[in-house]
């Protein structure tokens, strides 16, 4: 090959590369990886994607970020951890997304949380609530895992605070399901209760598919339990309140947020569904901004109770866009620095975020942003009583 030919080829190759990178430069790709079809929680994933799409529309309408438009690349993980891991590599390595939002199931985030850290590509959770998702791999390790959603441990802190400050509570009981979710909740319950010197008089367990918990409830009853803290999924909590009715025993019932699921409501029935009190980020009493987004997305949303995830994911995208803007770049390490030290406030659906994250705090929503909730006439409404009114942020310490 003559030098001349080589020079021509190099020039051609160079211009081709320049063209492809110019095409690439036009758009900033954001990924979503989560269950959209396979498990009952798929509805949460679908709502999340709607929220992200709405946020991208709004940002692009205002001219995009760094003069470039945003686009969304969606991958369904079918709620399977191996598929979810594969999707992460596909999104980051092949699609070259600058950040990944999701996933739907906490377990999948726990399965791949090393990937965003290794590839220095930020991940912003907006659905799953497992406490450990945003924990750094080691004390001072660079942490690319962020979240704009509920956190299990913060909910537990709320339930413990309520119990501790309720003057009528004399004897507390814990009641959890035997799955990983229930056991993780029990660990948080026990640790935070001990920190607040709250001693349960009974701890009982039930299976996720059980239909009758009267034996466990009778034990709590004979131990004199007047307040029960429940950590389980929606359907078994529904069976639990049905069993309460069988033995006509209704202690104060504080539960994990799974009681907001339609599956809980359908299992418990309209009347019994009103028994548990739990924490959630959005109730039917929506703020004007929330109502605006709700009206915009409602025609496309299969499950209305999943709206909270649309709002979380909308905000997650807004915060991501703000981080790219501040970093002036889509390089992971620069974005991480911007995430950890966001200067401009971010107008979101849940609230206006002032410095939502720091080097050590990777949760944008904390217990103070949650609302006490219960079912009333088939709707999720804000719950309040004297105990709730008297709760101070200091009571929620974890």
């Amino acid at each position, binding site marked *: 090959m003559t030098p001349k030919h080589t020079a021509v080829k190099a020039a051609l190759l160079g211009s081709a590369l320049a063209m492809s990178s110019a095409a690439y430069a036009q758009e900033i790709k954001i990924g979503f990886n989560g269950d959209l079809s*396979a*498990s*009952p929680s*798929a509805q949460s994933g679908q709502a999340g994607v709607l929220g992200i799409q709405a946020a991208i529309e709004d940002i692009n309408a205002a001219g995009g970020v760094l003069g470039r438009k945003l686009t969304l690349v969606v991958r369904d993980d079918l709620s399977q951890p191996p598929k979810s891991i594969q999707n992460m590599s596909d999104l980051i390595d092949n699609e070259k997304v600058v950040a990944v939002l999701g996933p739907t199931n906490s377990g999948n985030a726990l399965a791949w949380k090393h990937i965003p850290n290794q590839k220095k590509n930020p991940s912003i959770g907006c659905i799953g609530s497992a406490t450990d998702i945003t924990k750094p791999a080691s004390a001072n390790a660079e942490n690319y895992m962020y979240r704009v959603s509920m956190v299990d441990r913060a909910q537990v802190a709320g339930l413990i605070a309520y119990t501790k400050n309720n003057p009528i509570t004399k004897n507390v009981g814990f009641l959890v399901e*035997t799955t990983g979710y229930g056991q993780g909740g029990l660990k948080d319950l026990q640790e935070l209760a001990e920190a607040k010197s709250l001693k349960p008089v009974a701890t*009982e*367990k*039930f*299976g996720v*598919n059980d*239909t*009758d*918990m*009267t*034996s*466990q409830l*009778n*034990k709590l009853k*004979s131990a004199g339990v007047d307040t029960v803290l429940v950590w389980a999924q929606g*359907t078994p909590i529904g069976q639990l309140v*049905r069993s309460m*009715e*069988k*033995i*006509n025993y209704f202690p104060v019932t504080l539960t994990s947020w799974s009681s907001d699921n*339609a*599956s809980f409501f*359908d*299992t418990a*029935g309209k009347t019994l569904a009103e028994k548990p009190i739990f924490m959630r980020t959005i109730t039917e009493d929506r703020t004007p901004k929330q109502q605006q987004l709700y009206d915009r997305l409602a025609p496309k949303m*299969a*499950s209305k109770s999943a709206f909270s995830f649309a709002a979380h994911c909308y905000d997650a995208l807004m915060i991501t866009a703000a981080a790219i803007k501040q970093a002036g770049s889509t390089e992971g390490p620069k974005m991480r620095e911007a995430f950890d030290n966001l200067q401009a406030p971010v107008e979101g659906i849940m609230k206006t975020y002032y410095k939502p994250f720091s080097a050590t705090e990777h949760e944008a929503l904390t217990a103070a942003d949650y609302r006490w909730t219960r079912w009333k006439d088939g709707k999720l409404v804000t719950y309040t009583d004297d105990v709730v009114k008297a709760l101070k942020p200091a009571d929620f310490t974890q």
Partner: protein
Amino acid sequence: MDVYLQTLLSGLAIGGVYALIALGFSITFTTTKTLNFAQGEFIAFGAFIGVTMLLLLSGLASTTTAVPSEAASAWRYPAAVIGAGAVAGLMGILIFLLAVRPFAGKGGMNWVMSTLGFGVMLQSIGLAVWGPAPVMVPSPLGDDVLRIAGAGVRPQELLVLACAILIMAALDLVMRRSRIGKAMMAVAHSPQTASLMGINVSLVMIGAFALSSGLAGVAGVLIAPIASASLFMGMGFALKAFSAAIIGGLNNPRGCIYGGFILGVLESAVGLWQAQWREIVVFVLIILVLAFRPAGLFGQAAVDKV
């Protein structure tokens, strides 16, 4: 006192379900010496056939996760039970012809894999048709708790118990008194001899699979208002029912029924002590039974006369 009554009632209610499915295991085992390991999927399939029938018959639309309560009123629920039993029975014939007959009576355990595989297929078809979400099914008798001497029970639980006892009594009568029953017992004893006596052996075997699968379908619709219909509901029940059949004695239909009730009450009673030890207690009992009475608590040790 009412604590123990509650435990007994709750245990009998769930035990009735176990007994019904355990009976299905026993029927195919005694006639063909094979088991239908897709029994769990037949329960779930039956439940969804029931859901579909309730909706079609009432002309009501379902929300994504619940069937409206009017859909189960009057004659519709019994019709759905019978319909689900019939459809599951037909599927039972299919599983026998496709997955059991080619392997039955031959050495090896091919039918274990083929019936398991049939179950996987059934579940995949179900997922494609009905989706993964559980569906709450209303009880035809309403949902108000009934009080019996201080213990509470749902009408549907009593209905399941009553249906289980009724179906089992009827089957017991048929097996012991009628010609069909005697033919089934003859096939169970020795297919060759039965064939020489002029009994259509393969027809009896088909009948046994149809009956056993039909029972699973009926059980599905009966359980759905208690546990809610889900394509994943059957596995747990089928495993417990199989345990009940082992405890009672697989080759003794009556023993399987007793086994079902014993298991239900045992589970409920262990819950009064330490609920998380329930499965351990159940399987320790199975190991003990297998060690000391391999034919089951109520089974007769088979004596091969040569």
